[in-house]
C-alpha cells in the first residue's frame, strides 16, 4: 500500500516538476493590452505591448527576421508570428484575431467580403518580391528558355495525359519523357503560377505536387527529364544541382530570374510581390505602428535579402510607406491577381 501511495504522489510531483521546469523567469510576458503613450514610440525601449502576426508560409521567413531584429530594438514589445498559410491567415485576420497577416497573393473577393462583414479595415502593403523559378536537371542541354505559351501548354488542364514528352513541347526537343514537379493546389505559389502562365488558376492533375519546395528540388535533381517551379530562394540554395530556365513573356526576350530582373519586373510574368495586411484599427497603436514602420524601413531591407527574397525597389518602398502613413485602406487589386501589375503605378 505504501508503494502505491508513493507512486501516486510521485506522479503528482513529476507533473508539477515538469511545469516548474518550464517557468518563464527569463522574460516577462507582455500584456495584450497596449500601454504607453505615443510619445514613447521614438524612444523604443520604453514601448510595451504585443503584435500578433500570422499568415503565409512564404512571408514567414521575412516576418520572423523582422520580429527578431525588432525584438532587439524594442525589448518591451513581443511580436509573435504564426504560419496559417495565406488563406488561413486571412480567415483569422478577418475575424479580428490578428493584427498583421502575411500574404503571397492579394486578398481575394470572398476574403474582402468576410473582412467587410466583420468590419475589419486593412492597409495593404507590399514588402518583398519573389521570382518563381522554372528549373530543369543540370544535364538537360536542350532547354535554355521557355515561352509562357509553352509553359501553358505543359501545365494547363487540357495537357493532362496528352503532353507527356519533351518532343511535344517544341519541335526539335528530343524524345524524352516529361517529369513535372510543382506546388500543391493549396499554396499561393500554385495560384500565382497557374494564373501567370494563363491557365486560369487551374492545372493538370498528373504531376508530382508538394507544399514543401525542398521535395520539388529533390524531385527534379533525381529526374534528368524533370521540370519544376518554386521560389527563387530554393534555386539559389541549390544552384549547383539545378539549371535555371529563362522565361520569354512573348516578346522574344529570354529573361532569367535574378535579384535585379525580379525587382525591376523585367522577369515577367513570374516575379510576384509578397504582402502584409495591417488591421486599420490597431495601425495607430504604438507597438503595431513601430513594428510596421520597422518592417517597411529601407534600413531593414537587408533582412529581406538575407532570408532569400528580393527587397522592394526604392520607388515602391516609398509608396508603401506613404500608404501606411496615410492609412489608406482597401486593396488595389480588386480581388484579382497581381500578374502583370506594376506596383509603382497602382499604389
Amino acid at each position, binding site marked *: 500500500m505504501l*508503494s502505491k501511495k508513493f507512486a501516486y504522489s510521485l506522479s503528482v510531483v513529476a507533473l508539477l516538476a515538469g511545469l516548474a521546469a*518550464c517557468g518563464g*523567469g527569463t522574460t516577462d*510576458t507582455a500584456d495584450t493590452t497596449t500601454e504607453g503613450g505615443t510619445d514613447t514610440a521614438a524612444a523604443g525601449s520604453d514601448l510595451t505591448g504585443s503584435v500578433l502576426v500570422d499568415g503565409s508560409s512564404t512571408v514567414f521567413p521575412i516576418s520572423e527576421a523582422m520580429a527578431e531584429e525588432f525584438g532587439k530594438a524594442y525589448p518591451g514589445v*513581443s511580436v509573435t508570428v*504564426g*504560419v*496559417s498559410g495565406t488563406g488561413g491567415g486571412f480567415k483569422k485576420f478577418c475575424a479580428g484575431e490578428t493584427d498583421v497577416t502575411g500574404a503571397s497573393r492579394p486578398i481575394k473577393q470572398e476574403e474582402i467580403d468576410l473582412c467587410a462583414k466583420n468590419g475589419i479595415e486593412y492597409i495593404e502593403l507590399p514588402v518583398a518580391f519573389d521570382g518563381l523559378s522554372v528549373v530543369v536537371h543540370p544535364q538537360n542541354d536542350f532547354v535554355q528558355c521557355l515561352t509562357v505559351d509553352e509553359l501553358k501548354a505543359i501545365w494547363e488542364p487540357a495537357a493532362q495525359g496528352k503532353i507527356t514528352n519533351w518532343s511535344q513541347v517544341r519541335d526539335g526537343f528530343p524524345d524524352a519523357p516529361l517529369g513535372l514537379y510543382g506546388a500543391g493546389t493549396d499554396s499561393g505559389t500554385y495560384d500565382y503560377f497557374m494564373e501567370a502562365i494563363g491557365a486560369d488558376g487551374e492545372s493538370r492533375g498528373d504531376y508530382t505536387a508538394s507544399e514543401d519546395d*525542398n521535395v520539388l528540388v529533390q524531385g527534379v535533381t533525381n529526374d534528368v527529364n524533370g521540370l519544376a517551379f518554386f521560389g527563387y530562394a530554393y534555386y539559389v*540554395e541549390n544552384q549547383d544541382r539545378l539549371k535555371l530556365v529563362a522565361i520569354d513573356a512573348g516578346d522574344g526576350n529570354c529573361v532569367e530570374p535574378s535579384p535585379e530582373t525580379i525587382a525591376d519586373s523585367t522577369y515577367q510574368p513570374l516575379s510576384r510581390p509578397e504582402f502584409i495586411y495591417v488591421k486599420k484599427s490597431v495601425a495607430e497603436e504604438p507597438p503595431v505602428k513601430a513594428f510596421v514602420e520597422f518592417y517597411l524601413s529601407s534600413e531593414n531591407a537587408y533582412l529581406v535579402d538575407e532570408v532569400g527574397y528580393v527587397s522592394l525597389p526604392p520607388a515602391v518602398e516609398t509608396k508603401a510607406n506613404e500608404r501606411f502613413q496615410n492609412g489608406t485602406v482597401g486593396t488595389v487589386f480588386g480581388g484579382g491577381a497581381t500578374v502583370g501589375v506594376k506596383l509603382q503605378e497602382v499604389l
Partner: protein
Amino acid sequence: MTTSNPQSFERESSWNIDQATFLKALRQRYTFDKVFATLALLAVVFSLFVLAVLLIDVFIDGIGRVNWSFLTSFPSRRPAEAGLVSALVGTVWVMVLVALITFPVGVGAGVFLEEFISDNWFARAIEINISNLAAVPSIIYGLLGLQVFVRVMFPITQGRSILSGALTLSLLVLPIVIIATRESLRAVPGSIRQAGFALGATRWQVVREHVLPLAMPGVLTGVILALSRAIGETAPLITIGALTYIPFLPELSLKGLQSPFTVLPIQIFNWVSRPQADFYSLAAGGIIVLMVVLLLMNATAIYLRNRFQK
C-alpha cells in the same frame, strides 16, 4: 500434442496410422513452427531496421547541433543562432496539461462505463461513438478546438493559448485512454469484484481498492500511447493557431496557461521547409530533442507502471 514418444502409437492398433506417416506429419508441423517463428522474427527485424535507419540518419545530421545554446535560444533567421527553447517549453507545458486533463477524465469515463453503468442501449451507443472518435482525423479536432476553445471559450482560454491547445489535444487522445482503461478493467477477473461485494464493500470501494489498482498497468500503457500520439501532432495545433515564432516564454502561473505557444513538431516542420540547408540539421537536432522528451515521458510512465505492478 505429446511428441516425446511417437513409438507408443505403434502398439495401439486402433489408431490406423503408421509410424512413417506420423513422423512425416510431425516434421511438417515443426517446419511450420519454424517458418512462423522466422516470419515473426522478420517482422521484428524489419520494423526495428526502419527505426534504426531513421534514428541513425537523424543522429548523424543533428547530434552536432544539440548543445546548450540550441536548447536555450529562441528561433532565429540565422541557423547558427537559432534554438528551440520556446518550442521545447511549449511542448512540455502542453504535454503536462494533456496528461493532467486526460488521466482523470479518461480513466474516470472508462471506470464509469465499465463498472457503474448497466449494459443497455445507452452504454452501447456511447461505446460505438468512442470507438469511432478514435478514428477521426486530427484536423477535425483542430477545427472543433478552434470554434469551441479558441472562440466560444475565449474569456477562459484567451484564444490561441496553451490551454486551448492542451484541451484540443486532450479531446484527440481521450478515446485512446478510455478504450485502454475499459479493456484493462475487463481483464480484471470478476471473482475479485464478487469477493469484494460478498464482504459488504460498495461498488466504489471495490473499484478503488481492488479493480482499478489491478488494471493500472494497462491504463498507464494506454496513457503512454495517448501522450506519444499527442506529442507529435501538428495539424490540430496549427488549426487552432499555435504560432511558430515566439520570443518569450509563458509565465509560471495560471496566467501562463493563457499565453500563446508553439511546439516542437511545428518548429521542426518549419525548419525542414526552409531553403537553406543549414536549417535541415537544426530540424534533425529538433527531432532528437523531441525524441528525448518523448522517451523521458514514457520512461516516467513505465516506471510508475512497474511500481503499480509490484
